[in-house]
């Protein structure tokens, strides 16, 4: 079943008399429960795609339908509600609130997400039960990203959106984080979309999309994706 549908979606940035078409008439469908990787060189429009999907941005034209509902015309507040209820984010630079502890960073979503899960439980699942009271700056990069994953899943969203989740990590830590991310997504039955320029991650995906110059140039379905351990990092 399709959880997300993009219908002729364009996003144009104008600065002064300069016009940049970050996305140019994109049509795509994402199936529920799948692991989707969006690949492309920098500046191809990957992040814009993710931003639109996550309700961080609205398209200049076209329709984005999530679970049968068009989110392209939502107001700011409705978008906030959409983000709170439907999507979990994992960013390259973790984006934790530095003045809140690990537990508080995850528990924060309780205030906005209607179906949130226990913060302590999520932190235990990402293996940071001993660091509940620590501040983000006291953790390593990999640990911070795990907190970020716990926070994204604690909302109990439909879709997990990840923007270069391993981009700031060394490869060993990256693999561990990725494995955790996938395991958690599968355990909780979430659709997961990762945006990256790392070809190796793509090998693990159910669906790989290639983005170039604001367009989707190919969509490949992989019958037997590799597991993280099989890949030569």
């Amino acid at each position, binding site marked *: 079943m399709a959880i997300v549908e993009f219908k002729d979606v364009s996003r144009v940035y104008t600065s002064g008399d300069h016009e940049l078409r970050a996305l140019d008439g994109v049509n795509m469908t994402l199936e529920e429960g799948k692991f989707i990787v969006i690949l492309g060189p920098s500046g191809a429009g990957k992040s814009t795609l993710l931003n639109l999907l996550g309700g961080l*941005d609205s398209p200049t034209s076209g329709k984005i339908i999530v679970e049968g509902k068009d989110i392209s015309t939502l107001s*700011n507040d409705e978008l906030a509600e959409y983000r709170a*209820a439907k999507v979990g*984010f994992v960013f390259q630079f973790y*984006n934790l*609130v530095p*003045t809140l502890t690990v537990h508080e960073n995850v528990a*924060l979503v309780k205030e906005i997400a209607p179906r949130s899960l226990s913060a302590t439980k999520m932190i235990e699942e990402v293996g940071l039960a001993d660091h509940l009271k620590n501040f983000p700056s006291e953790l390593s990069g990999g640990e911070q990203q795990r907190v970020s994953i716990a926070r994204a899943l604690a909302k109990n969203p439909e879709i997990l959106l990840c923007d270069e989740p391993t981009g700031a990590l060394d490869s060993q830590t990256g693999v561990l984080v990725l494995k955790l991310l996938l395991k958690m997504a599968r355990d909780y039955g979430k659709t997961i979309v990762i945006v990256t320029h790392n070809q190796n991650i793509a090998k693990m995906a159910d669906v790989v999309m290639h983005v170039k110059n604001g367009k989707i140039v190919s969509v490949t379905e992989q019958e037997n994706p590799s597991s993280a351990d099989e890949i030569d990092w």
Partner: protein
Amino acid sequence: MLFKKLWRTMGLYRAQFISMIIMIALGVGIFVGFNMEWVSIDKNTFAFYKETGFADYRITSEKGFSVDEIEKIESIDGVEKASRYLSVNADVKEKNGDAVALTVTENADVSGVKIISGEKYDSKSTDGVWLSDKYAKANGFKVGDTVTLKYKNLEIKCVIKGLVKSSEYLICVRDSSQLMPDYKTFGFAYISPALYKKVAGTDFYPQINVISDLDKKDFTEKADKALGKTELILTKDEVGSYSLARGEAEEGQTMGSVLPVLFLLIAVLTMVTTMHRLTAKEKTQIGTLKALGFKDRRILRHYTSYAFMIGIVGSVIGIALGYGVAYIIMNPNGMMGTYFDMQKWVLYLPGFCVVTVILIVALLTFIGFLSVKQMLKGTAADALRPYTPKKMKPLVIERTKTFHKLSFGSRWNLRDIMRHKSRTAMSLVGIVGCMILVVGSLGMSDTMNAFLDMYYDGALRYNTRIYLAEDTTPEQRDEIAEKYNGDTGASLGVQIDDKTVSLDIYSLKNNMVRFPSDKKGYVKLGDDGAYICMRLADEFDLNVGDTFKVSPYGTDKEYTLKLAGIIRSTSECVVITDDYAEKLDISFIPDSVYTNTEKEDILSDSAVKTAQSKKAIMDSFDTFLELMNSMVIILVGGALVLGIVVLYNLGVMSYTERYREMATLKVVGFKDGKIGRLLIGQNIWLSVVGVVLGLPLGVLTLDFLLKKLAPEYEMRMYIGPVTYIVSILLTFGVSLLVSLMVSRKNKKIDMVEALKGAE
């Protein structure tokens, strides 16, 4: 959860938060303090005036008023109460050299007393005196003691029945040459009409005091009609205990509106820059919250509450500080306590202060709101991007050749100054404000000292002023003047238009009195013109060469005087020589002899009413100077706090903003010291500009304050070279100190951390 974030973020930016709280507290504190002062003076003194029946009008006649006449005044429609009244300066026999204002009022409800201890006032008592409690305390008199009061050849021996206060002597000074009360040498005493009649044998009262709501014109007409003749009528505005108190309240009003504006302005400007920096720095966090699904409203509320919190905490501390300031001024031993003879002060927080403080908090909150609003603009994706400062455009001066000849540091700093205009402007405001306060307060002290030198050392060259008795003969007067080798003088009440001023006639053979000129030095009195004080010259718009008319009280005579010069004087007066008086046909009957003989050596004589030493006048100034010095210390302290707080706050901000730049410089190979010098260099340039701007502004402020606060002293502004040097050094010192404090942080720059992560 966000609430926890609020507290931790405050901890993170504590330098900024604390400095803003200090600024707001100072601004609100000074605002509330001075406004409380004048409102409390108004309310307290009015209550006291009412309690002791302060008179609205005083009708005086040298011939005295009869019982018949007081009845006529009492029966005027609109007159509430009236009383025949006498107040003369009498010597205290037990305390050689002391005097008290000996007072008799027939109706104790008018110009009466408030009992502090002892018996209640008894108008039938034939042996009692009710003495000023402060005078009694200063001279060791107790209830039950006996005092002997000497007035002319009367000796009144009486028992102290009670210690009292009276609004008629709210500011208890002998005459207008004495600025501050000195209870050691001068107080007041009330005796009953019964005792007065018994000792004097008559009931001579040269004054009628009236409580009435009528306006002056109305009252004068009705009183003249009732008495069938024109008498001199003084309104309460012409009585020191009323006008000086009002003047004091007005001063508080000026202080309460001029000074706090500076602090509050700086507080608001600091808020604008700090909230902008804070939200700019927190922009990615704002983006994160937004991405998580927090609504704009929620985020706005969160960040706005920072500003609100600062406003509230600052205002609460400020109001507490205000109470403190007001208490320091108004407590019984404080500035006002020694000036006004009040039993107690009740402090009032005026309603408009509360309103203003609420408005300030609202304004601060609004500033916070606007800064976050700015960062929330656009989509969540926009908000997630870190704040990027405005693009750098080449400066106009960069096109000149000289710019490229400047060192790297100067160019870097110039660009930085141009790029962060508001921060630069704020630093300048801080330095200029600091400079204004230091120059103004030290200049005030210089001016005051110069004023004392000029007036009391230069103008009053005698040691003792002998007051002659009213009934002396010309021969007696000449004899006294000759015996003590003195100069003579007389004061006459005259009117210019409707204004009552004093016409002072002097016969100065020995130059015992000199008159400071409105310009420099002293005026040599000539025999073909009159000299008037600056205030009167201003009020009647008179220039040298103009003529003006004066008319002695209660007469239809009018004299035309030619203005020969303008002088500085503490009383509103017209001064002429005896020769000019003769030419004009004004009779000169001396009432005082000015001599170099010490007071102790003046022999008792029926022609001598009393004598006053210049030292007594000078002594009354000591407290005044002490109070002023503490004021100067408070203001200079405030200036330094202001300077340090504003500059430190901006310094830290500049440091965090340029963290990445400095980290890069460090990576390239700049040493910590070199980077530190770059930062200090910028501060020094700003300080130079600030000092250059602040100096003239400080002088202008002082000039304004002198005109506004103390017009009655007609002081000439004087700022000594030491003041200039100290002001400049202090301001530079503050700037340098702060630079050092900030540049010490350089060593902590973590190059890797700072360069990691995308911008």
